[in-house]
């Protein structure tokens, strides 16, 4: 218990005793005045005084005891506090040591754990990479096979188409050549005929006498008359 509290309790008790003594004294004086009796009053005063003194002694003894008790209590508490402080420091030091140890342990454990995790992750990654590589290789092989097959099919199809187109074109070309040959023959014949006609015309025009020309004109007029183009008026 705190020493100040002990003193305060003692002081309150003493004050209470004093106040009670005063009240009793006043009451006694008041009774003495009412009875106005000298003897009785003296005895009563003596008794009051004795009571007060006794009370005062008891109060004093109580204060002393209280002080002693307080001092003892304070001394005890101080001793307990020192012991507690020492114990606390010891426990704290111990706790700190334990905590430090735990932190170091935890750190080491964590580092080890991470290393293991990383190793495991690396193994896992390597394994996955290998697996993916394998799958990828398989996919590539599949794609390659499919592509080769597709190209081969496409090539065969194109080859077939080209062959068909070439055949058709060849046929058309042959037809054109034949058509051209016929046209050329027809043209040659016509040119030849035209040449013959022109030659004949030139021969007639320049190689025939004027009299024959006049006769030819008269022949034409006769023909026109026969056909009804020319009619006599």
């Amino acid at each position, binding site marked *: 218990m705190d020493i100040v509290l002990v003193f305060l309790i003692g002081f309150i008790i003493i004050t209470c005793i004093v106040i009670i003594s005063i009240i009793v004294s006043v009451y006694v004086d008041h009774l003495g005045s009412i009875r106005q009796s000298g003897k009785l009053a003296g005895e009563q005063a003596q008794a009051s005084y004795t009571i007060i003194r006794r009370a005062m002694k008891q109060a004093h003894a109580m204060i002393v005891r209280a002080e002693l008790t307080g001092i003892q209590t304070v001394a005890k508490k101080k001793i307990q506090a020192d012991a507690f402080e020492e114990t606390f420091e010891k426990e704290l030091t111990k706790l700190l040591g334990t905590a430090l140890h735990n932190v170091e342990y935890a750190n080491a454990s964590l580092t080890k754990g991470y290393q293991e995790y990383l190793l495991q992750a690396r193994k896992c990654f390597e394994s996955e990479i290998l697996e993916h590589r394998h799958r990828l290789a398989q996919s590539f092989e599949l794609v390659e096979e499919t592509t080769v097959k597709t190209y081969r099919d496409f090539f065969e199809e194109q080859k077939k188409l080209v062959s068909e187109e070439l055949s058709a074109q060849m046929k058309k070309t042959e037809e054109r050549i034949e058509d051209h040959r016929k046209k050329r023959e027809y043209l040659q*014949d*016509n040119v*030849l*005929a*035209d040449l*013959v*006609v022109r030659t*004949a*015309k*030139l021969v*007639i*025009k320049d190689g*025939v006498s*004027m*009299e*024959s*020309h*006049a006769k*030819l*004109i*008269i*022949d*034409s*007029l006769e*023909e*026109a*008359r026969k*056909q009804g*183009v*020319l*009619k*006599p*008026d």
Partner: protein
Amino acid sequence: MSQLTDSLISDIYTHEELTRRIALARGVCEYLFFKEPGLAIEDRIANYFKTYEHEEQDQAWIEKFLQQPHTHESFFGTIGELEQIEKKSPTIVLHIAVILPALEISMIGNWVKKNINQQTLIRFTYNPALAGGCAISLNGIYHDFSVGNRLYQQQEKILNSIRTIV
């Protein structure tokens, strides 16, 4: 139409020839009536023939033209009649290949006068492509009776002949 006029156009077969003869007659009249007005008409005629030389046919035609009363009215009356004939005569257009001399033209002209109409006149156009014979334009329609056209019509036969030979 007077006998003289008939006589004057008897040897004329083409429009061009009639136009030329009318111009010739006008020339003669202008000389006779306006060139030497002081001289007698006979002297003027003599002077005209001395001044201008013509081909035989034209000379003959002028002399024929002058065989009428030597008056202004008579000469120009005849010219008027010739101009009327020029305007009113029926015309046939013949397309021929060569330019014909007068003799051959007269052959054709006589045929026309004989077989179609005495007063019909010819207009010649020349197209060497016709070769021979003639084409006729009549009332705006072209009729081809030429040798060239006949040859073209026979072209297929010619072609067949060539093919046979080849």
